[in-house]
Structures are given as C-alpha cells and as structure tokens.
C-alpha cells in the first residue's frame, strides 16, 4: 500500500514522471543514462524521503480508522448491543464496577449465578477489560460527556483494534527497521478476519483488549531486548501486567519470551542486553502478575510459569559463570561449565518432575489440552464440548487468515535468510502459535497478529526484492547484476500479483467482517419469501419475559451456555453459567436434562429450581439448539453420575430423535420439554405433524403429557421454551396398595393404621419401588464440595475452580 501511495503522490508528478520516462527511453538509446538517473526522479526520491514520515503517519492513521470502521457493521446492521455469551458477563460486571467502584467489584459475591453456590466475582475474573471500559466511562463523565456504559462496552473492542494495528506497526518496525513492512503488518492485522471475529462492535470480550496488550508487550519487550534499556524493560512488564489483568492468554507471553531467550542462547548470541531485559521483565512481570487476585500465587507455582522461572535461574547462573571465566583457566572453566549445566538441567528436570508428581504444580485442563490435543476428548468433555475448543480445520485457517497463510512462509523465509534477534523472536512466536492455533480454533486469534506481522515482513521483502530488480534492470540492461537476476517482466508480474492478492485479502476481510462475524447471536436475522429482512428476536423476547413476569428470586435451570445471558438480560438467578468452574454442578444440570421427568423433578426440587429453560430450533431451522448439544449434557453428566450412559441415548447405533430413538432418549427431560406438543403443529406443508426441521425427521415420542412441569412461555418461533416446575400437589402420590404389605424400610412413610381417613390399608408415599429405582445420588454434599470431580475436571474457560477439594 505504501508503495502505491508514494508512487502516486500527485497527478502533477505522475505527469512529470511520464515525461521523464519518455526522456529516459530516448536516453537509454544512447546507452548512457537511465530513468533512475534523471533529475526528476532524483527530486521525487528526495521529496519522498522528506515526506515519508508524514505519509507513514497518515497511512497509519487511515489504517486505524479502517480498523474501527470495518468493525461497526454489527451496529449498523443490528443495533448497539452486547453479543454472544461471555460478553454479557463482562458487560454485567462492568456495570457493577462502574456503579460500585473497584473495591465493590473486588468484594462482589454474586448470588445470581451458580445457585446455591454463588460466585466470588472479584477473585475469579480478569478485570482488565472491565477496568478499562469503566475508566473510559469515568473519564468521559468527568469531561461532562455522559455516554452510556453500554456504548463504551460496545465500541471498546474496535478502538482497541486500532491500537493493535499501531502496536503491530511498531513491533514490525522494531524487528525489521522498515516502516513499509510495519505498515503492511498494521493493515493486515487491522482487518484480519480471525481477529475481527472477536473484536467487532459489541463483542465485548477479554480478547478484544488483550490482543492489543499481547502485541504491545512484545513490542516493548523487543525494544527492551534491542536497547538493553531498563526503562523499556519496565514498560514491557507494565504492558505484561495489563495483559495479565485482561486475559488468561498471558501464559503465551510468559512462555514465548523464555523460549526466545533459550533460542538466542542456543544460537550463541546471548548478551547483556537480553540478560537485562529478561531479568527485569521477569522479576517485575511476575510480581505484577501476582497482584491480580485471580492469578495470585499461581504466578509462582503453576506449570505455565515454570519455563520463565527456569530461564531466569539459568540466565543468572550462566552470567555468573561468564563472570567467573575471567578469573580461572580455560580447562577449569570448561569443566565447571559442564558440571554446572549438567547439575542445573538435571535439577530443573527433577524439580519439575517432583513438583508435577506431588501435585505442587498443576497444568490447567486447558493447557493440557493444548499440549495433548486428544486430552480433552478423553477426559474433559466440558472442554471438548465448546465449539471454539475444537481442532482447527484447514478451511477455517484459510477463511480466518486468508492469503496471510501464503505470505507467512515468505516472511519466515526472510526471517531465516537474514536472521536477527527480532526476526528470531517473530519466527518463534509464529511457529509456536501455528501449533496452538491448529489445536484450538479460538487460538487462531493469537496466531492472527503473528501471521500479520510475518506477512507484512514477507510482502514488503518480496516487493522490495522485485523493485530492486526492476531498478537494476532499468539502470542497465547490459550489465546484469548478479544479485538481482530475475527478469524484469517477472518482477512486474510479481508486483501486480502481490497487489492483487493484497486487494483480494482486503475484500475478503471486509466480507468476512460484514457477513460472518457481525452477528450478535442474540438477535438473528433472516429473509422472508419476498426478500425482506426479518429480525428473529426470540431470545430477547423470552429473556425479557423472564425479567418481567417471574419472581425476582426465581431460579432458572438451563444449560450453561445461556447462563450469562439469563443473568444479563433477565436479571434472574441461574444454576450454571459460562464460567464453567464447577464441573459437577454442570453435570448435575446435565443429569437432570438427561433423566426421566420424575428423576429430573427431584433434582430440580433439591436445587430450588422454579423454571427450566430449553432452546429448541426444530420449529424454525435454528440448528444451535439444545437437542443438538444434548449429547454433551449426557457426557458431562455421565462423567460425574455414572448411571447416565451415553449409549442409552443412541437408537440403532446413532443419535436420533425419531421413532427409532432409544426409550431413554424419548423419555428424558430434554426431549420431553423440547418437543412438548410439537407433534400438534406442522412445520412443513408436505411433512407430517411434528416434523423437526433441524433433524429433518418426524419426532418419535408424541402425545405425551407433562406431569411435573408446565409450559410457562414459548417464544414466537419456539426457539426458547420455558417450563415452570410445578409445586407438589397435596398428598401427592399417596396411593393405595390393596394387596399385601409393602413396606420399604427406609423409603416409605407408613401411615399409622387406624388413621381416620384410611382405615384398612397401608399407604406409602409413592416412591419408585427399589427394583426399578435408579441410583440417583444427587446429594447436597456433592454439589458443595464437588468431590465427584477430580481437580483436573474443573476447568478454566475464563474462570477457575475456587472451591477446594475436601479431603476425608
């Protein structure tokens, strides 16, 4: 982009240059001068040199504006609303923070979530995002600009995207010392679809600010490593502190930098600058990280931080040996080095193994999933169930990064061709991130700045190479320089091709931003037969119904996906939400959904549930519904309560909802609530009543009645269905057994003989007779201590297990 801009400065100069080229053609016939020697080109060159900084800033400014503008499609097409799931929690927390202040947030015990456990929000949240937007809010209010907190939250991520592109410019600049590479990087990162997917207006999530923090920390650190300056090192640790406060992904920084140090060491280029920068960064960064309550002492003992400790100690020892070197003989030094390195490495390994096996240090479930991609699938269904934790497919690589996947290898080649410390860093960052991004879809996001920077370097390198070629060719067709020996036609084609690819990339990014990543997901849009745009607002309709027409203290049971939205939209208490810190509590809800109506009722009653909310898409082609997610509920439930078996839910070997589905499936609560009275409606003229449009089949269980639940609300297009848990009826279930004496030792409440109403019989409260009774062991103890779940099962999806396992 820079190149074209500078070539087309003004029409006037264009004209002159044409004249110049004519001249040069005539001149070259004489075999003396070339176009590059003409006085005009010389002036142009020196002018361009003079104006370059201003142009650079202008272009950077335009890229920043572009980064913001391309992200507000969602507001234009829908409205200024918080998107998706996690942003709703962040928004709610920000509202609380703006109202109650930082200490209020620190001490906030949120009783609206995880009923009956609650959640201590202050200690289980990365507050960077909320503090950022609350600060913006406060500052604007001090300036007498009373903006709405919602709008601050909605537009925060686009603004930070602009910052990210500036940071990427700076970082590439530090690496290559070439501003044009920086500008390419800035452009690429500003509109890379993968990053846009998490930072469109309304997508108010940690990643929105932390990608900026990540790139900026790297920039600061590279600057520190470059200069060996204490100031930059302190700056880097401050940037790191911001990153830690904003996102759990800070683990990438605290691992990439040590790995980089090790790589530099192995290449034999370790020096004092690196030593200073790393030592300062490590010490300050670790201390800062500990200030975030959610991280706290994890910064010392969690496995994610071990590499940084190891490298720090190693650097100290190495520098100490180097210092000793001056005082002892060469052979003694060699022996000493060997000894020290050997003992040091073995100590590190042994120490790490010891800590790991004694459980002093732990990998979080998600980190383990990153190191062993099959881990989650085998052991942690809750991680595996999240769509953004799936392994990345090639198509999503290409869709999210587009031609950057082609440019990146060029950049890598360039890095390795003329290596420097900065380039080595960029290469390590990119290679590591490629691995992580291929393990989990969501980590494409962290890869995006890496490939943008790489591509920026690659593209600028290619263009420079081709231009030099062209220049050389123009200079003299006779004496071909041996260095640039590509034919000039090839150079022209190459430049045109690169321009074409870059343009295509911008178009693709625009379309991806406008069409794919700008859906709020709480509002759906479709087109009717006339082609008019139709808003499907079922979620808000039902959530708002909950807000208005249920008791304020009502407890809503739903799958955890909708927890944040229910607390955000409806202001009601939920059992589980997207902060999946307590696996067994989620498993309890999964079990309730997978149990028969009677068993589910018992669970619901124990948990004081007033309403059950299910998402059902079978009426209106909404495929992300609970029936499609149901197997995960079964798996997660079955992981804690073994009587729930996945295979019971398969009919004829597969998961289905039609007549061939298993009896367990057809009679479980989820099925019954989703399809309640669905058999009485026709969704398609040509199909029988009760035809599920998502599963493309006629449902298998028809005409049933609900005994314990009552339909309380169903949204316009049936997407959200809310059922009320009925209170027990009077003398519920008392029934007469006329023959024999049935007396279950512990389960029955036997009425005394001769009681006035029933004289001749024995009565018992209706319990399911022991033979049939399933061993459902939902006890309150289990819920509070989550002792059914191993530590590793309680995973961090933005939150963390806070209740410690009780030892008996």
């Amino acid at each position, binding site marked *: 982009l820079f190149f074209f801009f500078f070539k087309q400065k003004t029409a006037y100069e264009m004209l002159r240059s044409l004249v110049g080229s004519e001249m040069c053609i005539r001149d070259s016939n004489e075999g003396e001068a070339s176009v590059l020697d003409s006085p005009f080109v010389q002036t142009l060159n020196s002018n361009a040199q003079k104006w370059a900084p201003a142009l650079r800033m202008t272009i950077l400014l335009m890229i920043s504006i572009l980064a913001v503008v391309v992200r507000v499609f969602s507001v234009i097409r829908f*409205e200024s*609303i918080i998107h998706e799931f996690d942003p709703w929690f962040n928004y709610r927390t920000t509202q609380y923070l703006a109202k109650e202040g930082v200490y209020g947030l620190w001490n906030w015990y949120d009783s609206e979530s995880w009923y009956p456990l609650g959640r201590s929000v202050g200690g289980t949240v990365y507050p960077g995002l909320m503090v950022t937007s609350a600060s913006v809010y406060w500052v604007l209010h001090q300036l*007498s*600009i*009373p903006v709405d907190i919602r709008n601050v939250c909605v537009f925060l991520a686009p603004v930070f995207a602009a910052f990210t592109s500036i940071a990427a410019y700076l970082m590439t600049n530090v690496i290559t010392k070439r501003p044009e590479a920086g500008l390419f990087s800035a452009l690429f990162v500003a509109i890379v679809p993968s990053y846009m997917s998490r930072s469109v207006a309304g997508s108010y999530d940690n990643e929105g600010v932390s990608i900026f923090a990540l790139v900026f920390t790297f920039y600061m650190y590279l600057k520190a490593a470059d200069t060996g300056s204490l100031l930059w090192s302190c700056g880097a640790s401050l940037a790191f502190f911001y990153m830690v406060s904003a996102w759990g992904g800070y683990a990438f920084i605290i691992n990439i930098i040590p790995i980089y140090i090790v790589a530099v060491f192995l290449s034999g280029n370790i020096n004092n600058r690196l030593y200073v920068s790393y030592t300062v960064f490590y010490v300050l960064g670790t201390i800062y990280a500990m200030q975030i309550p959610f991280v706290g002492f994890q910064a010392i003992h969690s496995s994610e931080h071990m590499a940084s400790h190891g490298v720090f100690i190693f650097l100290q020892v190495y520098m100490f040996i180097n210092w000793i070197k001056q005082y002892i003989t060469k052979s003694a030094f060699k022996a000493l080095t060997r000894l020290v390195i050997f003992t040091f490495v073995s100590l590190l390994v042994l120490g790490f193994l010891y800590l790991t096996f004694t459980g002093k240090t732990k990998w979080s479930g998600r980190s383990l999933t990153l190191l062993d991609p099959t881990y989650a699938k085998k052991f942690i269904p809750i991680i595996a169930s999240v769509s953004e934790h799936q392994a990345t497919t090639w198509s999503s690589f290409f869709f999210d990064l587009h031609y950057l996947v082609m440019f990146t290898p060029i950049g890598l080649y360039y890095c390795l061709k003329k290596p420097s410390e900065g380039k080595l860093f960029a290469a390590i960052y990119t290679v590591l991130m490629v691995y992580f991004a291929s393990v989990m879809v969501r980590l494409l996001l962290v890869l995006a700045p890496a490939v943008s920077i790489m591509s920026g370097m690659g593209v600028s390198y290619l263009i420079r190479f081709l231009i030099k070629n062209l220049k050389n060719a123009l200079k003299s067709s006779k004496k071909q320089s041996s260095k640039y020996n590509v034919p000039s036609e090839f150079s022209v084609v190459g430049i045109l091709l690169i321009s074409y690819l870059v343009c295509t990339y911008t178009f693709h990014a625009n379309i991806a931003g406008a069409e794919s990543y700008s859906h709020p997901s709480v*509002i759906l849009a479709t087109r009717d037969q006339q082609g008019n745009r139709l*808003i499907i*607002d079922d979620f*808000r*309709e*039902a*959530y*708002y*119904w909950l*807000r*208005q*027409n249920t008791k304020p203290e009502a407890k809503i049971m739903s799958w955890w996906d909708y927890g944040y939205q229910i607390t955000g*939209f409806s202001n009601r208490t939920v059992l589980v939400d997207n902060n999946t810190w307590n696996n067994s509590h989620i498993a309890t809800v999964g079990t309730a959904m997978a149990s028969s109506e009677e068993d589910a009722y018992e669970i619901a009653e124990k948990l004081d549930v007033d309403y059950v909310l299910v998402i059902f898409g079978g009426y209106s082609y909404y495929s992300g519904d609970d029936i499609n997610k149901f197997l995960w509920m079964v798996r997660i439930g079955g992981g804690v309560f073994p009587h729930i078996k996945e295979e019971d839910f398969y009919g004829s070997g597969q998961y289905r909802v039609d007549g061939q589905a298993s009896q367990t499936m057809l009679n479980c609560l989820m099925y019954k609530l989703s399809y309640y*009275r669905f058999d*009485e*409606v026709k969704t398609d003229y040509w199909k029988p009543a009760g035809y599920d449009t998502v599963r493309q089949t006629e449902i298998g269980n028809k005409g049933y009645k609900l005994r314990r639940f*009552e*339909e*309380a*609300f*169903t*949204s*316009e297009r*049936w997407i959200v*269905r809310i059922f009320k848990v009925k209170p027990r009826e009077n003398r519920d279930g008392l029934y007469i057994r006329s023959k024999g004496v049935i007396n279950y030792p512990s389960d029955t409440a036997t009425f005394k003989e001769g009681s006035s109403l029933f004289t001749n019989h024995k009565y018992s409260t209706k319990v399911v007779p022991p033979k049939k009774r399933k061993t459902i062991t939902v006890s309150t103890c289990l819920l509070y201590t989550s002792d059914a779940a191993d530590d590793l099962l309680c995973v961090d999806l933005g939150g963390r297990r806070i209740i410690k396992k009780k030892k008996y």
Partner: protein
Amino acid sequence: MGNKDIVPVRIQDNSVQAQYNATIYKVDLTHYVESNQEEQLIITETYFNRMSALPKKITIFEDQNVEIYDNPHFFSPYPTEKSQTTYKLASSPIFYTEEDATAKGGNIEYGPYRNDGAFTRSKIRLHFENTRPFPVFKNVTRVIEVSHWGNIAIEDFYKLANEGAELTGEYNKVDFNKYTQHTGKNSLKNLKAKLPYNSWGVYYKDEVGNISTSRAFRDSASNSVDMTIEPRFALLGGWKSNFYIGYNLPAKYTLFVEKADPTNYYLRQNSGLIFKGIMAEEFTIKVILPEGATEINYQFPFPLNEVSEEKSFSYFDFEGRPTFVFKIKNVVDYHDQTFTVNYKFSQNSIIREPLM
C-alpha cells in the same frame, strides 16, 4: 348554559366522609339559576379499578368474566325526583341484581327511582363476560429535553400491566399466538399511540434493546403520527412489560418566543399520554431546560400532585440543566391538555456549548 367545561372543586367535609363514605365536589355554575327554572348539567365521572375479574384466574382457553358493584341511584347530597341508570355491557350478563331491573340483552336498566332522598344508595352486582385486556400503566415517566438548537427530544418510559384475569395453567404455545383469536382473548397484543404530527426519529425499545415490532406512519387526516406497537410478547392476564417510546419534535412548533422580549420563551407541551383510553397510575413529566434558563414558571390546566426541581447533566453541562419534575396521579384522557413552561434564556448562552 352552553357547553362550557367546569372543573369541580373537591370539598373536604369530614362529617359526610364519615357518615356516607363519600367525597363532595363543588361545582360553581357560570350564572345564577332563578327559582323554578331548570338547568341542565352533564357530569362526567371517570372511575378506575371498578371492574375486577371473576374468576380471578383463568386458563388460556377460558373467557374472562368481570364483576362490578355499583349504586344505581343518583348519588348526591340533594333529593332526586327521578333517576334511572342504564348499564351497557359487552354481553348479556351472567348475573345481575334483579331488583328494579329490566334487562334487554346487554343493556340493564335500573329504575326509574322516584323521590330519592339525599345520599340514597343501594348495591347491585353485575357479572358478565368481558374478554378485553385491561391495560394499565403502573408508571409513566416522560422526559422532555429542550434544546435551543431546534429540537425537543421526548422519551416516555412505560410500565405496562394487563390487569385482567390472571393466567393459570399452561401457556399452550400451540393454541395461543399473536394471530389466533379463540384463545387468550384477554391478552394484550398491541397498543395504538398517537404522536404529534411533526414527530420524527421515533424509537421503541426496552431495557434490553430495540423492539422490532412497531409501525408508525404520518397521518395527515388525523393530524398525528399513528403508531402501533406490539410488546415483545403478548401480555396475558397478570403479565407485565416495560418499554420506552422516544421521539423528537421540531422546536418551532412547540417552543415560542415573546415578540416583545426575545429572551422570554414559552414551551407548550401535551400533558396527556400518547395512548388513549389507558390509565396511568403515576405520571411523571420531567422538563429539562437548557443550561442557563432562569425565572422558570409553569402552568397546568389541572392540579398537580407534586412538583420538584432538580439538575440534570448532559453533554458538556457543568452547572446542570434546570429540570422540573411534575407528578400527576391517575392520569386519564381528561389530562390530554396543554401545559406551558415559561422561562428566560439569553441568546448568548446558546453558543456556549459548541464553543467548548
């Protein structure tokens, strides 16, 4: 006496209050009535919460019935020679007090009663089918923000409830939806509002965002913008919903300046609801005047329950805008009148904010 409206004055008479459980209103006639002359008076009384659903709770398949207790005599502190009361019901009644009554379909006539003494009364009960919803605004807050740059921004916040028979039992999505008429008859599916003819930039939203189910068009025949809104969900009996309606008015139609004194402004605004036929239990009007407005007076065509003054802050306000808060209870169509706020505002103040 022509057809001049006279506002009655409430008289505090504790003895009557204690003895008859009645409130006395005094009407000042416009001229004297000579002896043996007749004068015709038309008295309009508006009651609310007189009808109540019976049974209190119905399923979605049942029709709503209501009951009402009333006094068929003309209740007055004067003797009445002859009086007659006709009740026009939506349908023939399920039950009515038969004493002195003649029923013709939905019309029930009591009386004529002759030579009633002062404060004569009896109690009748009517029970009949009325399937219409009973929309009530529990609370309405209107914020009128005056800008001397030519715009008056108005935002109303409504707390709507359907006080018909409460829904019991299942919701039954299969049988009940917006388009069916045979179930959930007492559900409130939409409301019609009339906004001033010149309104523009109309929006309809609630606490969780925009509501896409509304239509509005400018109707020159009725000289208004007719707006039909549907709540997010049809309000069955006992259900509630809140919403905002906002619109802008060009200042030239409602903000007037005195010719002789160009610093003297008159803001004329409607003091009623934009929804006709629905009562608001509490209505708050907040008038936010521009920063720097002084000597503020107001004039309402009816008594107010409470008036207070505060400051509000908007973009680049440092002193705060003078704000008057008027509270009115039990607002009905009668309140659909015009009130005036008069204040002084110097032309120089207008450029202060853009300068900042």
